[in-house]
C-alpha cells in the first residue's frame, strides 16, 4: 500500500536518512523502531510531505507521491499523529476533531466519523466542549488519534504515542491500536519502546543513525542481536 524506495532526506542539505526502503501492506501494523536521533521523525515527516526528499521515491497505492504536498497527502489518506500530540490547545475537543476532518474527502463524512471516534474514546465525549489544552497527556493522545481518524485515514502513522504517558495510559493507547488493527486499518507505529512495539506490530524496521539496521517479522527483529546494538549505539 505504501512503499519507500531508496529515500534520502534531511534538513538544509544535510541528509539524515540514507537509502531507506520500506513497505506497508494493507491492514498491517508496522513498527518503526530506533533510539533518539535515529531519524524516525524525519522519516515520518518525509512520508507526510513536510520534509522534501533529496532522492528516492514514495509510492502510495501505486501512485508516485514523492513530490506531493502535505495537503495532497492528507487528501489521499496518509495521516500523521505527531509526536507530542500537538492538539490545538485553545480549541475545544470538538473543534479539534472537526479540524481533523478538514480535508475535502473527509469533510462530508464528519458527523458519522465523529460518532465512531467518540464511541472509541468515551472520555472525549465527556470533554467535548473543554479546551484541548486542559486535557491530561493521555486524553490529549486520545484526541490526537481521534483527530487523525477523523481524516478517514487509510494509513495512520503514530509518532511516539507512548511518549510521556503513564503505564496505564500506554496500555490503553496500545489497546486502541490493536482494536484499529482488527478493524483493518494500516498503521505505522513509530516508537522508542522496543518490547511494546514488538508485541503490537507484525513487522518491524529498526533505524540506526539514518539507515535501516534490521527488518523483518516482529519475532525475528526481537531475537536479532543487531537490534540491541542499534539501540545501544555499539
Amino acid at each position: 500500500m505504501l512503499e519507500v524506495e531508496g529515500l534520502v532526506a534531511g534538513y538544509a542539505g544535510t541528509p539524515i536518512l540514507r537509502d531507506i526502503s520500506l513497505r506497508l501492506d494493507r491492514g498491517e501494523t508496522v513498527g518503526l523502531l530506533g533510539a533518539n536521533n535515529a531519524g524516525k521523525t524525519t522519516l515520518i515527516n518525509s512520508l507526510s510531505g513536510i520534509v522534501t526528499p533529496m532522492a528516492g521515491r514514495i509510492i502510495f497505492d501505486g501512485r508516485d507521491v514523492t513530490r506531493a504536498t502535505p495537503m495532497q497527502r492528507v487528501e489521499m489518506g496518509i495521516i500523521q499523529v505527531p509526536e507530542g500530540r500537538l492538539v490545538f490547545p485553545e480549541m475545544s475537543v470538538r473543534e479539534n476533531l472537526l479540524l481533523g476532518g478538514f480535508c475535502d474527502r473527509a469533510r462530508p463524512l464528519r458527523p458519522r466519523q465523529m460518532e465512531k471516534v467518540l464511541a472509541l474514546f468515551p472520555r472525549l465525549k465527556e470533554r467535548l466542549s473543554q479546551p484541548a489544552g486542559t486535557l491530561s497527556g493521555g486524553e490529549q493522545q486520545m484526541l490526537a488519534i481521534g483527530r487523525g481518524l477523523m481524516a478517514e485515514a487509510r494509513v495512520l502513522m503514530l509518532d511516539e504515542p507512548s511518549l510521556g504517558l503513564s503505564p496505564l495510559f500506554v496500555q490503553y493507547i496500545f489497546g486502541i491500536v490493536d482494536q484499529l488493527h482488527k478493524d483493518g486499518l494500516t498503521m505505522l507505529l513509530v516508537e522508542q519502546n522496543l518490547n511494546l512495539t514488538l508485541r503490537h506490530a507484525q513487522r518491524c524496521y529498526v533505524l540506526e543513525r539514518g539507515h535501516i539496521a534490521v527488518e523483518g517479522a516482529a519475532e525475528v527483529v526481537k531475537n536479532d542481536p543487531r537490534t540491541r546494538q542499534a539501540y545501544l549505539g555499539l
Partner: protein
Amino acid sequence: MSELWQALAQGVFIGSTYGLLALGMGLVYGVSGVVNFAHGDFISLAMFMCLALFSAFSLDPYVSVLITIPVMTAIGALVYRFLLRPMVGYKFLMVVQLTLGLSLVLQNGILMIFGGQPARTPSIVESKLIILGDVVLRLAHVIACAVAFAMAIGLYVMLRSTDFGRSIRAVHQNAHAAALMGIDVGRVQVMTFALGIGILAVAAALLLPGTPIQPTQGLQYTVITLLVVVLGGMTNFVGIMLGGLVIGISEAMGTVYVSDTLGRLVPYAIFVLIMLFRPQGLTWRAS
C-alpha cells in the same frame, strides 16, 4: 458633565473603528507573525481610492466601498503572496523593513498622483447630526461604530464556527499541526492578509466623512493601530476591541479636557502607563 458624555460617546465611536483597524493587524500577526508597518498607508490608499471614485463618478464613500473592498482584498493577497511570503520565516526585522519600505512607496505614490494638499471626500452623512440631550453626535460616527461592532462580531463568529475560521485559528495555534490536518498554511496566510487589508477598505469609508485626508497620514494610523494591537495582547480578539475603545476614549478626553495639540499626546501617555503596569496587555488571560 455634558462635556464628559460628549467625550465618552465620541471616544467610543472613534475607538470602535480603531478596534476594527487593529483586528486586521492582529489576525495577520497571529497567522504569519508579520507586523505590517504599512497598515496605515493601506488605509490611506483606500481613502484616496474613495476620493478618486468621488472625483470621477461622484460616488459617496459608502457606495465606493463596494469597489474598494474587492480591490483592496486583491491588493492584500498580491502583496502577501509576492512580497511578504518570500520573507516570512527569515528575520523578523527584515519583514519590518519590507513593510516600512512599502509604506514609503505607498505614501509617495499617493503623493505623486493626488499631490500634497489636504483633501476631503464629501459624503451625504457628513453634516448630519443626532442630538441626544446635551450630547451631539455625528451620524457618520454612529454609523462607523455600528458597522465596526457588527464586523467585529461577524469576524468573531466566522473564526469560531466556520471551517475557514477554524483553519485560521489552527495555523495561529500550531502551524505544523495545521499542515498535518491538510490545511494549506501558505494559503491561509495569504487569505488572512487579504482579509486584513480588505477590512481597511471598510474602515477607510467609515473614517472618511468629515475627515480631511493627506498622503502622509499613514504612519499616524499605523501607530494608533499598533498601540491598539499591543494593548489588546496582539491576538486577543476581545482585547483588541477593548484596546480600540481605550485609545479612542483617551484621544477624545485629551482633545476635550487638554488643549487640542497637547491632547493628542494623551492616548500615548495612557498607553505607556498601561504597559508599565500590564505589559501582557489588557486582557486577563494568562498564557
